[in-house]
């Protein structure tokens, strides 16, 4: 291993240059990731060819191995090539690469007659990258192995391939195979043309996005490219240390992963020993990655230590509520109503807080902004403002400092009101973008890139996603339907209004509940547009459900076990609908999906102001609970969310189409990947 590593380190730079440097192209040390298209076109580069030819060409790939390992890629490729549309310029480039190269094996694949083994490897790697990204790849069986990512399928592929290589024996011919396998197997492990790989991978990453939102504009592509560039740069940096360490790096950064592989390609000798080692690495990396995937445990408020710590840092003054509900000790239970005036008075003392963030925080606190999408958009816009006004302090790096800044904003917002899952996802996205900023960018460039990223997120993940959902959902509304909805969901409102615009004849049953009575505002809007509405409270749900034909519900989040996490009462509505055998359609943008799982509504929830329960608007005669806090035996519990079991849900309508709740984890996985590399 060590020996190998040493080789790698030596070779790495060389290989990279070889693999991807276009003959004439100026080769940025970063491996030209930045410009995927260029890289691709350049992929056949002269330098690499000789290298591959020398070491690998003699090692002709044994037929069996071709059939097994290569066959798949060939399929995928063939599939890919016919599909012109998805083939963004990038894809085409990748295809071309193999052509340019003269590896016989490649010819077998059918892409181009002459392809050097090395080139072939490249092709393979490309495939692997592309596969996960592109939808069509997913269709072909080969697609799976191609994924260089930590996903299990990817691993399996690697395993197979490696196995094939080993079976071949230590033969030189095998080496090529092994290398190929290695490349595939480990996102990071590709051997020889690591630089190339990196580029490819980056491309792949950027691609999925394009394909997925077929609409994805050029701009998106460009941005992706930029991102890729940034990633490449990072990777480049990462590579060196990794090389020295020789250890397998977490797969999360593809760049790093790639590096070790580079070494491998060079020497045929590597083949036999390398294979096993590679395998191991492959296994290990995904493992780590998987661990990373597990969401962090949330703050538990019955942990006194941490609560104390958090309090010391807190901007917002919060005092513990007196009559806390025993069952919810693990959630924050503060006295409501005191923070707002307190915060307002501090407006001019809070230096670190950007005013726009501050404003949004106050809006959360006062409840002016509520609803998953609205809160998320408000937060992103505030961050955008903050980024616009941001300037890197001297002797600090923008990436680090801005991330810290955002984190402090986020913790402020959390103090105002616990984050919704949609916001959590958006923050993750933003931090990721910051982390991926290329170092070469000037501050202003970085800022504008981030701002446009935020714009794009809002546009693609929320605005366009909503449109797609509306388009899907409207197909489920027929004339004469009686649609029931609960609370006030922005998407459902859009669906109803759009269906009304289309001239569909239907009636809406609007179910509402205390204490928020959000449905009343929605009722106003719907009636103003001329929709026929019936309004009732959730108690009467069994009464109104008898005539209903469809139930449309919004969601705050959909968890990966299919549980729908939404406004409290949604579960009741879904349950009663289920009892009456009426389909329940959940409308939720995919960016709100989360990999967390939850079985009940108690382990994680948000508690609202208990005082609103004791007072009933317009009912002054109800004052039985006026001084409830004086009696320690009495608690008021104002839950905000609940969890609807997935068996009550007939269908989830999301921007990826209409899926059953069991498919949520699939979307979460696929989406997250794409989301991270947006």
């Amino acid at each position, binding site marked *: 291993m060590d020996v190998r590593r040493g080789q790698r380190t030596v070779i790495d730079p060389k290989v990279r240059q070889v693999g991807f440097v276009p003959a004439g192209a100026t080769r940025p040390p970063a491996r030209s990731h930045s410009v995927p298209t260029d890289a691709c076109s350049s992929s056949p580069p002269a330098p690499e060819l000789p290298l591959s030819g020398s070491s690998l060409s003699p090692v002709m790939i044994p037929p069996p191995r071709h059939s097994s390992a290569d066959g798949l890629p060939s399929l995928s490729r063939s599939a890919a090539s016919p599909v012109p549309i998805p083939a963004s310029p990038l894809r085409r480039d990748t295809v071309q690469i193999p052509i340019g190269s003269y590896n016989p094996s490649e010819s077998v694949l059918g892409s181009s007659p002459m392809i050097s083994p090395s080139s072939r490897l490249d092709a393979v790697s490309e495939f692997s990258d592309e596969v996960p990204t592109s939808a069509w790849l997913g269709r072909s069986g080969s697609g799976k192995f191609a994924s260089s990512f930590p996903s299990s399928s990817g691993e399996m592929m690697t395993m197979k391939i490696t196995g094939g290589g080993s079976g071949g024996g230590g033969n030189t011919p095998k080496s090529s195979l092994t290398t190929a396998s290695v490349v595939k197997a480990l996102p990071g492990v590709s051997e020889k043309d690591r630089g190339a790989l990196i580029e490819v991978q980056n491309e792949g990453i950027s691609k999925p996005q394009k394909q997925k939102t077929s609409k994805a504009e050029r701009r998106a592509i460009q941005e992706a490219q930029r991102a890729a560039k940034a990633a490449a740069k990072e990777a480049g940096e990462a590579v060196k240390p990794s090389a020295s360490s020789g250890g397998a790096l977490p797969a999360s950064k593809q760049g790093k992963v790639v590096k070790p592989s580079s070494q491998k390609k060079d020497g045929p000798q590597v083949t036999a020993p390398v294979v096993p080692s590679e395998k191991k690495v492959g296994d290990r990396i995904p493992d780590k990655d998987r661990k990373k995937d597990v969401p962090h445990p949330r703050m538990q408020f019955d942990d006194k230590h941490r609560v104390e710590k958090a309090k010391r840092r807190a901007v917002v003054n919060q005092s513990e509520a007196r009559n806390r*509900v*025993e*069952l919810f000790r693990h959630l924050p239970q503060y006295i409501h109503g005191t923070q707002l005036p307190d915060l307002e008075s501090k407006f001019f003392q809070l230096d670190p807080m950007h005013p726009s963030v501050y404003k949004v925080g106050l809006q959360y606190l006062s409840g002016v902004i509520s609803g998953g999408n609205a809160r998320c958009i408000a937060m992103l816009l505030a961050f955008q403002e903050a980024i616009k006004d941001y300037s890197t302090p001297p002797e600090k790096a923008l990436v680090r400092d801005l991330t810290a800044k955002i984190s402090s904003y986020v913790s402020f917002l959390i103090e105002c009101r616990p984050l919704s899952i949609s916001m959590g996802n958006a923050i993750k996205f933003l931090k990721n973008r910051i982390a991926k900023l290329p170092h070469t960018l000037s501050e202003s460039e970085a800022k504008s890139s981030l701002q446009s990223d935020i714009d794009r997120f809002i546009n693609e993940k929320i605005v366009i996603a909503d449109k797609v959902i509306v388009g899907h959902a409207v197909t489920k509304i027929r004339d004469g339907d009686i649609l029931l909805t609960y609370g006030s969901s922005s998407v459902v409102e859009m669906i109803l209004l759009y269906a009304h615009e289309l001239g569909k004849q239907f009636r809406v049953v609007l179910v*509402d*509940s*205390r*204490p928020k009575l959000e449905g*009343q505002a929605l*009722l*106003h809007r719907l*009636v*103003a547009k*001329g*929709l*026929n*509405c*019936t*309004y*009732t*409270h*959730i*108690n*009467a*749900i*069994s*009464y*109104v459900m*008898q005539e209903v034909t469809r139930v449309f519900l919004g969601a705050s989040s959909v968890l990966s076990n299919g549980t729908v996490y939404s406004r*409290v*009462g949604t*579960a*009741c509505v879904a*349950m*009663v609908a289920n*009892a009456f055998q009426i389909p329940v359609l959940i409308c939720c943008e995919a960016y709100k999906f989360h990999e967390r799982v939850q079985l*009940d*509504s*108690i382990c994680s*929830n948000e508690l609202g102001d208990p005082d609103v*329960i*004791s007072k*009933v*608007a*317009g*009912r002054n005669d*109800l004052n*039985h*609970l006026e001084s*409830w806090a004086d*009696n320690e*035996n*009495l*608690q*008021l*519990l*104002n*839950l905000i969310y*609940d*969890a609807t079991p997935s068996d009550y849900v007939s269908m989830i309508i999301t921007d990826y189409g209409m899926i059953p709740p069991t498919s949520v984890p699939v979307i979460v996985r696929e989406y997250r990947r794409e989301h991270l590399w947006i």
Partner: protein
Amino acid sequence: MPDVQALVNDFVLKLKRRKIEGSHASAQHTAELLRSVISHQRMPYTNQAGALIDAVKAVGEQLIAANPVELAVGNIVRRVLHIIREEDLSSTATAIEGLGLSAGSDDDDEGQHEDRPALSAAALAAAARSTLRAPSLQTLLEDIPDSAAAPQPPSSGGDSEGKSKSDKNIRSRKLKHDVIEAINELIQDIDTCHEQISEQAVEHIHQNEVILTLGRSRTVKEFLCAAKEKNRSFRVFVAEGAPRYQGHVLAKELVSKGIQTTVITDSAVFAMISRVNMVIVGAHAIMANGGVIAPVGINMVALAAQRHAVPFVVVAGSHKLCPLYPHNPEVLLNDLKCPSDLLDFGEFSDCMDFGSHGGSPLLHVVNPAFDYVPPKLVSLFITDTGGHNPSYMYRLIADYYSADDLVVKRRSTS
């Protein structure tokens, strides 16, 4: 009679205006009213039972029509009719007995009569039932001629043909007297059913139990308080029970007794039910099939309880037992209340414009008062006679009502 009529009219008006609501109050008022009706009823020479039944039916019909949803009224009317029949039957039985034992000894007979009041009318009725119609298929089949015969003078009169007129006179006064006694007992039963029910509380509530209830029911309150008095410590979740929010009242009462109480919104029922050991609710009425008419929102609770296999217990006095089988009860046995409970008229007056859309407004507000819980969702009924399965309700009903009275309507001839 005229003053009775005034009372009846007054009560009918109150029922119509929903001034009297709640099964307990209306049951009690009904029983008291019927008592005064009976006491003012002039007894004819023959067929006194028939006359009483007719009088009660006439009043009962009006009362039931005044608020058909208040099933307790009908229940009490039927109970009173049943009482009259039983008393008549028992006196007939006594007469037969007296005839058989000692036809000559009028004194003895009278002495017996003196003793009778000491025995409870119910016990007597039970005895009569057991002697005259044991619950067998045969008696069921014979029931029709038998009960038809009871009110008819010829048969009952025929039995006592040999007796003197004075004897008859005594018997007639005796019948009225017994009936009134029995009604008094019924009224007392209605008042004290809570105690009998709450006596069973300790058998059902264990230490550290978590109980969920919705809205407010006096029976539930007494039930929980009784358990607390026996030093059981437990926790209660009270769903507030919109749109009346009686849960607030219940919570206040429970807290004053030192019970750990948590008030939740109705929408949070599903969220909380997974941590609940038992659901205890009151009822508006229990139907013959074991279904329950209960304050709105309880069906939701019952479904949630079923989902999490939480026992769903209904506590109710026997005056809530209704001998009718429900048909489409959600609609037919429901009351739609004022929309202003849900929406502020001022805010939504623009939406309720009848003129704008062909005479029908765009906005409808539904505010039903009751829910129907089908028997399969109910785990147990706790009544003043003990705990019962939903499937047993029909049998319990047969104890309290006679089959002839299920439809309270005077014969068209009378």
